[in-house]
C-alpha cells in the first residue's frame, strides 16, 4: 500500500499537464457505503487521443466517469476540463451512458432522443425548429440510423439503441466525448459503425475516452489506455502501458494466460 501510494506520487503529473489536458482527474475517491470503488485516482487524458479505460468488473471504470461528471458525488477529488473547472465547461463534453441505464419502453421516438442532445441550445422555452431537426437527422445519418428517425425507441435492437445514444452525443457538438461501455452487447455492424464515428472524431482533433471491456480490440481501436482496479494501475500509450505485466496487476491473475497470449500486447 505504501509502495503504491509512493508510486502514484512519483508519476503525479505537474500543473502544465493538467492545464493542457481536456480531461484531468486528481485524487478522485468514490465509495458506495463504506467501500471505496475508486480510490485516490489521477487520470490525465491527452488532447486528441482515444483512451480506453479498462479493468475488471467492479473496478470503478464507470464510476470514475460518473463521478468526474458529477452524476455520482465523489468523496474527494477534482476534475479539470481543458484546464478549467467542470462547471462552465459542460457544453464541451458529450456523454454516452450505458445503454441499459434507461427504460427503452419510454414514449419517445429516435429523433426525439437525438434532439435531447440539443437541450442546451433549446433551453427552456425555444421551439424545436426545422434546423434543429435537420441537425439531429444529420447525426443519425453519421451513425447509419437515418432511416430510423421516426421509430419508437422500443423497436430498436441493442446495437441500434447504442448508435442512437452516440448520435445524441454527436448532436451535443462537444470537444470531449466520454462513453460508458459503448461496445457492450452490440452486433459487429454496430461496433464497426461506432468505431468509425469515433475515429472520425479523433481525426477532427476531438478527444475520446471510452470504458472498454474487450481486451482483444484495445490496440486496434485505441491509442492510449488507462488501467484501473479501484486504484490507478497504469496510464499511457497502448505501446507502453498495455503490457502483460500491467494486465496481470489490473486483473490480478483473473485473465487466463492463454487469453493474454492472444492479445496484441506491447512488449513489457
Amino acid at each position: 500500500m505504501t509502495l503504491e501510494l509512493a508510486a502514484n506520487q512519483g508519476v503525479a503529473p505537474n500543473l502544465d499537464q493538467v492545464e493542457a489536458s481536456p480531461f484531468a482527474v486528481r485524487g478522485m475517491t468514490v465509495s458506495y457505503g463504506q467501500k471505496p470503488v475508486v480510490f485516490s485516482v489521477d487520470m490525465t487524458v491527452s488532447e486528441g487521443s482515444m483512451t480506453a479505460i479498462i479493468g475488471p468488473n467492479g473496478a470503478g471504470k464507470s464510476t470514475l466517469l460518473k463521478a468526474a461528471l458529477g452524476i455520482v458525488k465523489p468523496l474527494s477529488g477534482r476534475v479539470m476540463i481543458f484546464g478549467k473547472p467542470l462547471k462552465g465547461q459542460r457544453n464541451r463534453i458529450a456523454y454516452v451512458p450505458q445503454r441499459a441505464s434507461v427504460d427503452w419502453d419510454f414514449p419517445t421516438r429516435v429523433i426525439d432522443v437525438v434532439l435531447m442532445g440539443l437541450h442546451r441550445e433549446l433551453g427552456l422555452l425555444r421551439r424545436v425548429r426545422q434546423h434543429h431537426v435537420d441537425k439531429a437527422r444529420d447525426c443519425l445519418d453519421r451513425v447509419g440510423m437515418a432511416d430510423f428517425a421516426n421509430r419508437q425507441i422500443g423497436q430498436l435492437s441493442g446495437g441500434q439503441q447504442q448508435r442512437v445514444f452516440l448520435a445524441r452525443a454527436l448532436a451535443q457538438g462537444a470537444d470531449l466525448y466520454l462513453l460508458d461501455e459503448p461496445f457492450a452487447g452490440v452486433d459487429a455492424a454496430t461496433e464497426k459503425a461506432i468505431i468509425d464515428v469515433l475515429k472520425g472524431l479523433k481525426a477532427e482533433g476531438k478527444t475520446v475516452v471510452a470504458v472498454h471491456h474487450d481486451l482483444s480490440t484495445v490496440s486496434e481501436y485505441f491509442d492510449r489506455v488507462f488501467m484501473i482496479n479501484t486504484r490507478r494501475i497504469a496510464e499511457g500509450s497502448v505501446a507502453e502501458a498495455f503490457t502483460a505485466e500491467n494486465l496481470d496487476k489490473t486483473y490480478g491473475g483473473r485473465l487466463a494466460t492463454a487469453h493474454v497470449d492472444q492479445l496484441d500486447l506491447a512488449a513489457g
Partner: protein
Amino acid sequence: MLWDALFLQMGYNATLVAIGACFLGVAAGVTGTFLFLRKRALVSDAISHATLPGVGLAFIVMVLLGGDGRSLPGLLFGSAVSAWIGLLGVSWLTRRTRLAEDAAIGAVLSVFFGFGIVILTVIQTMSVGRQAGLEGFLLGSTAGMLWNDAVVIAAGGALTLAVVLLLRRSMALVAFDPEFAAASGINVPRIDLAIMALAMAVTVVGLKIVGLILIVAMLIIPPVTARFWTDRTDRVTLISGIVGGVSGYVGAALSAAIPHLPTGPIIVLTSFGMFILSLLLAPNRGVLAALLRHLSFQRRVHMRQGLLALAQGQPIYEKLTLRLLERAGLARADGVATEEGRARAAKALRDEKRWELVRADQAFESAAALYDGLREIETVLTTDQIEEIDRRIGGPMGVPA
C-alpha cells in the same frame, strides 16, 4: 338531466364545480404524466395523505387567531406545508437510510394520515369545531363550493400548467435518462423536487373537489390512459390533460345530474371508464389489438411454414396449417399442393433465400430490421434491389419471382 348538467344548465353551484373539476383534471393529467414517466407515481399517495394534518392544524391556528377556520386559502396553505414536510420525509428516508422508496412512502403516508385523523378528532371537540366540515377534505365535498373556491382552484391549476410548460423538456429528459441529464448540467434532484412540488400543488388544489384519498387517481389514471394511444412524450402529456379535463367535467356533471352521487368518486370512475376503453381498444398497445395481432401472426406463420413445406415436398402435420392452405385454395385436404399452391410455395422459398442475403448484408440493415420471417420482401425493397439480390443468388431462373 344529464344533458342539462353537461351544458351547465344545472344552476350556479353545479356550474362552478364542473368548471373547477375540469381545470383540476387538466392540471392533474399533465402533471401526473411526469410523475408517471419518472416512475414515481406512488409518491403522490404519500403527498396527498400528508396534507391532512396541515388542514387540521391550519383550522386550529386560524380559529385561535380569531379568524374563520374554514377559509379555503388558509386550509390549502396549511395542507401544502404539511405535504411538503411529508415529501421531504420520503425523499430523506430514501436517500439517507436503506429504506426503499415504497417502504418510505408507506411509512410517511400512514403516520401523517393517522396524525391528521387525531387532529380532526380533537377539532370535533372544540366549541367552534362541530361545523368545520373538515372531513370533506377526505373524499371531497362540493356542496358548499363558493365562487372564491373556484377561483382558487382555477388559478392554482393554471399556475401549475405554466410551470409544467416551462420545465417540460428538462422533466422529460430527467425522466428518460437521468444520468445524461446530470452530465449535461441539469440539477436532477431539483427537477425531481419540481415534479413532486407540482404534484403537491395539484393535490392541494384538488382537496376541495375530489379529496385527498382519491386525488392520486387523477394524477395517475390519465397518463396511463394516454400512454395506450401514443409513443411520444408530448402527446402523452396532451392526451393525459384532455382525459383529465374531460373526466373532471363529465364526472362533475354526472354527479350534479343524479342526486346523492359524490363528485370526487364519480370523477375518478369516469376517468377509469376512459382507461378501460383505452386498455381494450387502443390501436397499438390495446389488449384487443394485441390479441388480433397475435392470432393473425400465428396464421401467417402457419401459412408460411405450410408453403415452405410444400415447396420442399415435406409432409404437413399441423391441422391448422392444412386447413389454412386448403381454405386459401393452395392445397387439397390430403396435403397435396394445387397449381397455385406450387407457385406460391416456390415464391416463398425464393423469398427465404433473398431474405437470407438481405439479413447478411449491412447495406440492407434498415430493411433487415423489418424481418419477421413473414413479411413479403417486395414491401421493404425496391424491384431494383430485389433484382440485384437475385443476381447474387443466381440459381435456377425458372423459379417464378
